[in-house]
């Protein structure tokens, strides 16, 4: 949630002149309805999202757009979350051994982040492209946070 907060502050203010560059990245909204256990699926999804978001920000380090300190904060947050989830998942993996299939959710998220990455590349990592990507990643986090909350409320094996 802390990360979501940072991402929100990252995407504001959104410059009007960037509106024309907005693109739909096709956030995979139904990935959690695949046949995997919901809780594990959410953890996997969050792990993947944290990792890819961290990866995007650290691969290109857009210091011309955000302050270095701020970027460091968000990168720290994302990497810590990623490491934490990784430990969680590894612990669970020890208990269940049938993890030989790449989950559909992971592939769907990879496709999504690949589209983001390609978009940045196409736009030559422009200011607007970064702003749009920041909004998109924030949207992705909010979506899954919301989803998790709804699941908790409905107590679907969570």
């Amino acid at each position, binding site marked *: 949630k802390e990360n979501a907060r940072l991402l929100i502050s990252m995407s504001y203010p959104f410059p009007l002149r960037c509106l024309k560059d907005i693109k739909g990245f096709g956030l995979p909204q139904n990935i959690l309805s695949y046949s995997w256990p919901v809780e594990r699926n959410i953890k996997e999804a969050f792990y993947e999202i944290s*990792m890819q978001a961290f990866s995007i920000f650290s691969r290109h380090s857009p210091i011309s757009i955000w302050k270095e300190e701020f970027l460091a904060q968000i990168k*720290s947050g994302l990497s*810590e979350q990623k490491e934490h989830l990784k430990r969680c998942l590894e612990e669970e993996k020890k208990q269940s051994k049938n993890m030989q299939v*790449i989950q559909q959710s992971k592939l769907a998220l990879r496709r999504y*982040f*690949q589209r983001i990455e*390609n978009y940045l590349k196409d736009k030559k990592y422009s200011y607007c492209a970064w702003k749009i990507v920041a909004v998109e990643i924030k949207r992705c986090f909010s979506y899954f946070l919301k989803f998790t909350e709804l699941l908790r409320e409905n107590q679907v094996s969570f």
Partner: protein
Amino acid sequence: MLASLEAMALVLVAGAWRGSLAAADGKSQKAPETVEVSIIDDVFTLQWNGSQESVGNVTYSADYATSEMDNWIKLPGCQHITGSKCDFFPLINFYEEIKFRVRAEEENSTSSWYYVDPFIPFQKARLGPPEVRLEAEDKAVIIYLFRPGKRDGTSIWDMDALSFEFSLVFWENSSHGEEQEIKTNFYISKMYDLSTETTYCLKAKARLSWKVSAYSPVYCINTTAEHKLLPPENVTFGARNQSYVLTWEYRDVNVTFRAQWLHAFSKLTPWDNSNEWKQIPNCENVRTTYCVFPQSVFQKKEYYFRVQASDGNDTSFWSKEKAVQTEMYSTILPPVVSMKSTNDSLHVFVKAPKKQFDTFTYEIILWENASHTERKLVSKRSDIIIPGLKPLTPYCIKARVLLQDKWNKTSVFSAVVCEKTKPGAAASIPWVIPVIVILLLAVIAFCVMKLLWKCFNYVFFPVFKPPCSIEHFSEQPFGNLLLSTSEEQTEKCFIIENTQSVIIVEEPEETDEDYRKYSSQSSQDSGNYSNEDESLGNQISEALLQLKPQALSCPGELVLGLSSLGLHSS
């Protein structure tokens, strides 16, 4: 459908093959068979079984299409291939399904297509071994790992850059059997405490989820001769007041030190992080074996620290790196407490000095100034009302911040604040008023009733009543009557016997009620009474036995009986 297409193609091709190769009808070539795609890192290989007998200038070409595309596209690197395989690298989204088709060609004639079942490249791809580069110090070896695959930003493993895990096997070349196995997800690691001028070797394999590579070739390196200037040792991290303190050990005194820090996340990325180390402020060219710097320099995250010694001409190697979660050491400032008393409750305000953390609670300790019994309250709110206190009593409180982190850290307690509660009278006013009103109403109602009663009596039972004795009687509560056995009561009894009808009318309800009281008491006679009351109990039972026939007739007789009980008791 694809399968049937393939089958058809095969049949067609087989027919054509048996027929005439020379026929230039576009279907005269034998289509390639058992086409397979293999992917190792970023090398895609398309392999097929061509015609058994190589005839003329038969070449093969392949097309590909992904689920994002509508058309087949010629596969670069796989056009007009004379052999039975080709390598290629498509610039595609590796997480989308891809499909291939291959056909044989010769001059103008082409075979039908052989269709490869669609697949997701990432799922099919296998992992090659990582690359290794070693760098030697006198007593340490730095291991630089490079993930398999291309490094130009188009690799199939690009999105996995942060999920690689490496298994290293490290050993001293001369000794046998003493292998060290290390698992790491850092691209740069360092082996410490080695011998000088010794050969060390290493092999590594990469792992990505369940994809595991083969071991890399063995890499070896010699450590250098001992460096004159030793690196500082035993780097430790701590906190003092509102500063952090980095300390280390060093034997020689005529040296200066400098200390650097690195974001822990920098270690996760596959790039060389050697230029991402930053100087700690106030920690350059220091002569002390410690550095003090404000906590505000660092966020509450994980960092690495290292120290280096220098004697002017020469600098040492870097010390061992110290990983630190600054959050563990950071000082949490105590909250500021104030309170306001409102009669029997206290309104407490606690406030953390600044926004230090996201989730925390306040622990508030409350005690009466005079006593030492403490009450502990835990609250998320910053204003708390503590009700139910004694009025006009001095109470004291102190509070601290409790964090819900891994270490369950707390701040020190705030200064103690004392306050006397207000007088209770003010508080009692609200409920005293209705009580008084009710009492007044009761009194009024009683008077009115009495007045009415008087009228009633006056109308129906004029004067012949001897009121004084009745009043005496009714003044005497029955509980007392049962226990007290004075002579005077005995006398009263006789009087009552004579005027029973009056009594019946006068206080019918009261007698009835008292009878109930009495009978309940009498029922206890069966054994619940104490020894002291034993004789009395027996008397009561006797009296009851005598009374029973009379009691059935009317309440007046009952009163008589009760009175006679008084007589008996004496």
